[in-house]
């Protein structure tokens, strides 16, 4: 068993804040840094990780097939065409979350730990069984939050659940390492007082800041093209995700994209 294998859950509580976008970007980023990475879609029934990763036409078997022993992991894992070391484990579109069992998930994660360095779990929204299953075996949690009151409240709720309903909590092991990923950040709106600032969110959630991803048109383009936004090297969002991955791996990188652009940057700078 690869003792270094780490399970990372990307969760939020609130829906639509950027979990799948972030799961795709972070797992791609880790694989680009030569770490063997697999990203798992835990949103049974409403799967969309495969769309964001651009592999929806190559899905034959899914997570539930493996749990039910209808297919092997090898038959189900999809190798990413662009990035070496990156694999995707898609969710089922036709079944529902009751098909996910703790034992089934445990077996698969143990098997994945033998071949991969990082296992990224893309959680569904909410605090019910799908989300609980995605977080149960996590060593790290990336809490995706929009700088907006209901998202922050829901993230706070999910942090409480991580602290009590995960395997580490139940067995009294070291707690899950929490990382704040603030997405859809707009420095102009913060300046106008329309949006919560990074400091406001940090003050409420009290967890270390992994990264600030600016609001970006590139995200929609990327998901329509089926290319994780981190591969769009000209976009601010892509660069911000790259910084976040570096910070996750222990590098000290100052936070960019937290200040509004001045006129020169807007005219000559990278497109948002």
């Amino acid at each position, binding site marked *: 068993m690869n003792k270094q294998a780490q399970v990372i859950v990307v969760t939020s509580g609130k829906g639509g804040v950027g979990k799948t976008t972030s799961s795709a970007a972070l797992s791609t980023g880790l694989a680009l840094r030569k770490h063997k990475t697999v990203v798992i879609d835990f949103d049974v029934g409403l799967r969309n990780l495969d769309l964001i990763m651009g592999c929806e036409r190559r899905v034959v078997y899914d997570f539930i097939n493996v749990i039910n022993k209808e297919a092997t992991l090898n038959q189900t894992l999809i190798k990413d065409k662009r990035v070496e070391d990156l694999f995707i484990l898609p969710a089922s579109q036709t079944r529902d979350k009751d098909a996910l069992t703790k034992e089934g998930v445990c077996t698969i994660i143990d098997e994945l730990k033998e071949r991969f360095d990082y296992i990224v779990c893309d959680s569904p929204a909410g605090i019910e069984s799908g989300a609980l299953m995605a977080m149960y075996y996590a060593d790290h949690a990336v809490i995706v939050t929009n700088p907006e009151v209901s998202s922050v*409240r829901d993230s*706070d*709720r999910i*942090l*409480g*659940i991580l*602290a*009590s309903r995960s395997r580490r909590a139940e067995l009294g092991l070291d707690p899950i390492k929490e990382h704040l990923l603030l997405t859809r950040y707009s420095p102009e709106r913060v300046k106008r007082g329309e949006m919560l600032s990074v400091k406001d969110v940090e003050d*409420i959630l*009290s967890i270390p800041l992994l990264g600030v991803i600016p609001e970006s048109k590139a995200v929609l383009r990327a998901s329509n093209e089926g290319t994780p936004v981190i591969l769009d090297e000209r976009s601010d969002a892509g660069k911000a995700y790259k910084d976040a991955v570096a910070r996750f791996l222990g590098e000290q990188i100052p936070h960019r994209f937290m200040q509004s652009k001045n006129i020169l940057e807007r005219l000559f700078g990278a497109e948002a």
Partner: protein
Amino acid sequence: MDSTLLRKAQSAFLLKGGAYTFTTLQLLSADLETIRLSLVDKIAQAPKFFEKTPIVLDLQKLEVPYTEYNLLELVQCLRTLQLIPIGIRGAPEPLQQVAIAQGLACLSDIRSAEKTETPKVSPQEIMPKVMPAATVTNKVITQPVRGGQQIYAQGGDLIVLATVSHGAEILADGNIHVYAPLRGRALAGVMGDTNTYIFCQSLEAELVSVAGQYRISEQLKESCWQKPAQISLSEGHLRITPL
């Protein structure tokens, strides 16, 4: 019965004694509607605390003839409010039959220990009473209390060294100290001790309560909002002063 079957049946369980503490609802009024309204109000202050709590009904203080009393409706009312009535004491013989039919146990009529300084109780008010804890155990919390979490320091003080988020509930039989912003709900003296306090570094609470007397955030905004504050009871009224 076959001897092997008999031996199997005998090893199916062990009979043991056990001591448990239950909340007692000592009734002072027989008016069902008054009881129901007071309960709804009390439960609203700390919903999780009362949810699915076993309750013993104590009728010893009732002076109304038992014929005027509707035990059946009361038990149903408690069940509707998510309480679990498990027993009754101080009930005259005919009411005991009703109780048993309702699935309640008839417990012995030992007086529950009265507190030395019982606050003045009007006939309309109902005070839950519990055997006081023998030792005082304080609870110290060092991690943020997140929304949806509930912490209860039974039989002592609650000390929190990190933020209490919106949507969190902290309760104590004794005092509550929050050395950080208090943004959720804090209830001190939940068992009726009026001599308890709430202290916090920044008062931003959704609700504060001392021995059942409460105030919500709209009313709190007038005093010490987002400043260090202490909350206590003074002559039966909640008093908020700077710390």
